[in-house]
């Protein structure tokens, strides 16, 4: 149990606010903050002691602070019954927190120009990253997207932290109309970017990875695959990813991710077991019917 191990603690709700389409919740969760590195996430238990909901809900970390032994802020939208329960919490309520979990973003050793691309709530994960990159004197260019104005998270924070910010909304209500990935090529060119960090739905990450490959620069993408435990024991969260050995492995995004090199993920085969994956059904490998 090294220091980089996660902790599991009863977290106490400190604040709960609604901003745009999202709930922002700050938890006092001693031990998480000091271990946290950008890109990692926390897994929360929902529903209380007699809960009928057994799976954890995972959230990117928006900010950690050393106050009260360590606080963690997350930004989330109400989607199903677990997030609905979370949104109903009030200060002093208790939530079980496990974290920080997952592999963080790799950081450049020298100052390099970065594009930070985020869509909807997923943008939250960019801010702790930006803080660290700033310390390393990296020029930062934000690209933020969402369905509409309400769904764009962190435009103000990005303006504070970044050298530039561009926004795209699908309904055109803020920034340019369209998808934020459509702004990426010109952002890379304009800023002479050397790396792209992205937190977004799968479709966007696929497109980001392609674009970066075209420019020959690395895409560090944080995926948001459905997770169940967040700790690596259940095998729910697998993606087909090409390993260092050149073979495709079904890897758990909660422990081997959520951050991957974009070109390693076999985006077109997500939701399948590629026939050439390690351990794929033999029948398929032999070209027989499954």
């Amino acid at each position, binding site marked *: 149990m090294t220091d980089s191990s996660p902790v599991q603690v009863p977290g106490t709700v400190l604040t709960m606010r609604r901003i745009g389409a999202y709930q922002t919740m700050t938890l006092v969760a001693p031990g998480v903050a000091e271990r946290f590195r950008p890109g990692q996430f926390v897994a929360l238990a929902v529903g209380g002691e007699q809960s009928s909901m057994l799976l954890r809900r995972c959230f990117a970390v928006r900010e950690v602070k050393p106050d009260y032994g360590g606080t963690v802020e997350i930004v989330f939208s109400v989607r199903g019954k677990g997030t609905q329960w979370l949104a109903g919490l009030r200060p002093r309520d208790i939530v079980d927190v496990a974290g920080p979990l997952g592999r963080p973003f790799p950081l450049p050793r020298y100052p390099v120009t970065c594009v930070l691309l985020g869509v909807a709530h997923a943008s939250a994960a960019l801010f702790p990253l930006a803080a660290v990159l700033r310390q390393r004197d990296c020029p930062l260019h934000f690209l933020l997207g969402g369905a509409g104005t309400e769904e764009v998270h962190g435009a103000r924070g990005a303006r504070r932290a970044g050298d530039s910010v561009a926004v795209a909304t699908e309904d055109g209500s803020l920034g340019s109309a369209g998808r934020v990935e459509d702004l990426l090529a010109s952002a890379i060119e304009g800023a002479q970017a050397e790396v792209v960090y992205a937190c977004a739905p799968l479709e966007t990450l696929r497109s980001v990875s392609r674009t970066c490959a075209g420019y020959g620069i690395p895409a560090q993408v944080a995926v948001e695959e459905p997770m169940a435990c967040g700790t690596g*024991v*259940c095998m729910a969260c697998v993606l087909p990813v090409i390993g260092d050995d050149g073979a495709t492995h079904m890897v758990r995004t909660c422990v081997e991710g959520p951050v991957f090199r974009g070109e390693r993920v076999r985006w077109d085969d997500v939701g399948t077991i590629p026939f050439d994956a390690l351990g794929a059904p033999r029948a398929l490998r032999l070209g027989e019917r499954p």
Partner: protein
Amino acid sequence: MSVDLRTRLGPVSLPNPIMTASGCGGTGRELGRFFHVAKLGAIVTPSITPEPRAGRPAPRLAETPSGVLNSTGLQGPGIDVFLDRDLPWLDEQGARTIVSIAGNSVEEYAEVAKRLNSAPGVTAVEINTSCPNVEDRGLMFAAHPTAAAEVVRAVRTNTRRGVPVFAKLSADVTDVVGVAMACADAGADGLSMINTLHGMAVDTWSFRPRLAGVTGGLSGPAIRPVAVRCVYQVHAALPEVPIIGMGGVRTGTDALELILAGASAVAVGTANLHDPSACTRILRELDTALRERGITGLADAVGLAHKPAGTLIRRIDPNVGVGEPTEQESLQ
């Protein structure tokens, strides 16, 4: 008052009865970040197959009321990598390892058992009999007493003395006692119960099954009453056969419930997904629960629900009683 938590599973003694359930504790390393794996009675590995397996496509898990449906398809690295990488790590930690094995034919089970035979650090073998038998229209071995018995016989033959073989049964049968008896007759040293129930969920927006594998296995507190019933029935029929009880254990008193029904040890599955510290918490809670009830030895509680009301006699059962641990075991 201190509680003696030791338990016996046939020839083996464990320092306490709490273990991870197969497929719910990772390789041990994952939970090892939350507690020392050697603190548990044992670690049960995911079911190990002869070859690596990529498992089923996602989505693989779905939440249901107080339960979880899974269709992971036994993703795993295969016996070679297991022996090279995972088993030695567990051994180094001082964990007692129960290796769950799986296959799609009697030969595959036998093959894995043979490979394990020469490996150090195997405390027991658990046969996952819920795998589809490719030689019998994909029906699971657990569905038929004869098929289950055949697998047990093959594994027992290929496992060295002193390493007990447990047959893990499915509750998805008309007569679980019949299957249990067949397995015991075929040489199983003990029985593990229960595996997941066969279930399914449909997404009411996409109109599609919520699992890519269409149907899956239901686990979690939802199924605990079925687990308690199976353990109770089988313990009544085969009181000398040790049982590893599992199914929906979330707290120390849940574990005690299975013990009272007849389990000598208790495996914790889905609760690990919900609470990565579940196993050590449950162990602590079980200790407290026994203490609060004036029970000084775990063995006294095994099967107590079968006794007439008011019975809590101290008894030394040759099977579940507290034997002196052997030297090797007490060193761990």
